[in-house]
């Protein structure tokens, strides 16, 4: 018998609509209204300026280590804009623009990186999971949410994110496989910024693209210019539409670059050249999008300036609210650590709460709201 080639069902395409010189492909240009475009731009700028402000807060010790998101605005914003409010959004940790758009207040994001669990609480009515730190693990939750959407026969979609490095985790492969086998309405978006901390993508895999991973799980995959917010939107909108119509999951790879260190404690000079960083700075999604908006007559220089000022005011006000909350007795009350672990706190955990309370009282550090309710020690009886 001669060997016969097996034809695989998918080709992998690369999609770019608005290039780094702000030239737009008129045929592929998505139909977005001026308001749509302004909204997208607004949240991208809010994320960029918010990220810069957070770096400031971190340097002053007001928040802790955090992963910066500058450079990732288009991957996040272009894709999330394809969702309806009733759809679900399952981020990793660089989807700052997308989370703000979905309704996470800035101060909640500051609280998260400021060391408060309260920063992980999805606001009322926002169908998002919080930031996920153990990389790739959230993809299985998204697959499960998608399976449950099918189970309930709803026409909803779940959009989830991961980094290029995270595609090496088993959870990534299991998530794609489950979503595909169960035809779940999931859109997987890879924020391919080409590095996992210091490790370049070539050390994660021998494949040319992340997108082609889709082929082995029997779903469509597409690679997109991740600094092109229009292309990210177009690719995601098509995937969302297919998923909503029962066509199953899609893998989208957005090629981008982190314009910052991995986190505030990283030193990228150890593994990236200045030259490379400069090159990518020229491909900044915000620069080309601003030019596109100007060319289209949607937002001119003056309007942009005004918008930036508004955004800076908004950030300032959010920092103030964050500081108030971060210094409030309520959020600083250490006894809160016991209050949310179970629906009904078991008695022995309650006793540990009392133990800490007695200790704080002894040290004069008991929050006023807790005072006067101490119970006596119940252990260590003499026979």
């Amino acid at each position, binding site marked *: 018998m001669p060997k016969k080639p097996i034809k695989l069902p998918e080709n992998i395409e690369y999609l770019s609509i608005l290039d780094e010189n702000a030239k737009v492909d008129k045929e592929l240009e998505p139909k977005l209204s001026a308001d749509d475009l302004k909204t997208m731009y607004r949240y991208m700028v809010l994320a960029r300026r918010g990220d810069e402000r957070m770096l400031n807060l971190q340097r002053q010790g007001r928040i*802790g280590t*955090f992963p910066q998101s500058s450079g990732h605005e288009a991957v996040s914003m272009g894709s999330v804009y394809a969702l309806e409010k009733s759809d679900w959004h399952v981020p990793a940790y660089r989807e700052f623009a997308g989370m703000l758009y979905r309704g996470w207040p800035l101060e909640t994001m500051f609280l998260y990186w400021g*060391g408060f*669990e309260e920063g992980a609480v999805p606001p009322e009515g926002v169908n998002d999971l919080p930031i996920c730190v153990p990389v790739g693990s959230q993809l299985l939750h998204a697959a499960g949410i998608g399976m449950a959407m099918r189970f309930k026969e709803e026409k909803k979609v779940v959009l989830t994110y991961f980094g290029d490095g995270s595609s090496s*985790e088993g959870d990534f492969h299991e998530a794609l496989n489950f979503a595909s086998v169960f035809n779940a309405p999931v859109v997987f978006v890879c924020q391919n910024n080409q590095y996992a901390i210091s490790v370049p993508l070539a050390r994660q895999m021998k494949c040319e693209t992340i997108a082609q991973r889709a082929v082995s799980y029997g779903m469509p995959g597409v690679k997109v210019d991740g600094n092109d917010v229009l292309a990210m939107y177009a690719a995601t909108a098509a995937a969302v539409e297919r998923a909503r119509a029962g066509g199953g999951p899609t893998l989208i790879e957005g090629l981008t670059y982190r314009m910052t260190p991995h986190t505030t404690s990283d030193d990228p000079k150890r593994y990236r050249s200045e030259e490379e960083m400069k090159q990518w700075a020229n491909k900044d999604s915000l620069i080309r999008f601003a030019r596109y908006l100007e060319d289209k007559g949607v937002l001119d220089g003056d309007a942009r300036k005004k918008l930036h000022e508004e955004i800076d005011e908004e950030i300032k006000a959010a920092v103030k609210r964050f500081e108030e909350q971060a210094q409030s007795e309520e959020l600083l009350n*250490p006894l809160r*650590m016991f209050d949310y672990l179970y629906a009904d706190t078991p008695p022995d*955990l309650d006793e540990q709460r009392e133990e800490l309370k007695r200790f704080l009282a002894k040290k004069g550090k008991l929050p006023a709201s807790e005072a006067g309710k101490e119970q006596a020690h119940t252990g260590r009886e003499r026979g």
Partner: protein
Amino acid sequence: MAEMNMAKAINKALYEALERDERVVVLGEDVGADEGVFRITEGLLAKFGDKRVIDTPLAESGIIGTSIGMAIYGLRPVAEIQFAGFDYYAFHQIESHASRFRNRTRGRVTVPMVMRFPYGGGIRALEHHSESRETYYAHTPGLKIVVPSGPRNARALLHSAIQDPDPVVYYEPKAIYRAFKEEVPDTIETLPIGRAQVVREGREITLISYGASLRQVLEAAEMLEEEDGVKAEVVDLLSIVPMDTKTIVDSVRKTGRAVVVHEAPRNCGIAAEVVARINEHVFLYLEAPVARVTGYDVPIPYFSKEKAYLPDADRILDACRQTLSF
């Protein structure tokens, strides 16, 4: 002799092991060009090359699973998991395979490897970056687990772990990587795994701890002597499995009172095991119930409130006084 901190001492041990034993390989996420996110592998790639100092793909199960294969095939892998909070991705490889091969092959197939897991709170880190879960490993038959508490024993224990014929979890107290310096001898030292050390002599009460918590325990012991005139003996376990029952019970037989301290949660924590051994061996010498000062049975709070969770000298002192006045 040279003065160095724990980060440097662990780095030194890795360097020496790579130099003296060509079977040793170091692998993990960002251990090469980046020299580790805590810079523990500084200089190793430059000196030993990427055949022996390996930046792996981002996959903890991959790191531990392939280390098992390499160990079976005659290498001596020293695997770094970036933070102990991510070693659960590798847990099934550790539990189902690393810990079992020797037993299920009646000694024919063995897994001499070291797993370095930086653990613990107190450094204002992100979610999942501060936990202490040594009990999982202590509860897994077939594994050894050691926890250094200072530069000198860190270097010696790492050498012992690398030379050990079985898989060893080397639980690294990252909060004290750079907290203080100690003299570390030029010649290579080892410490027998399974041996505790009495690091402070006393007659009235025994304080037992390990890892990063030992600093707080020693501080409490000083305060107890200064403020109450009570001399506490302090036992540094160093090795959790095997546990040095003899050193513990010898001390408690002498003092009749004990407080066990760790930052891991209390329920089924290492302190529970220590208390059980004290009860089994020297129950009739006890003057008071043995106290535990531990983390609470909650996930270590995110860093705005982690201080209240971590045992500090004040909490330990308080427990000592209650034990002494029982």
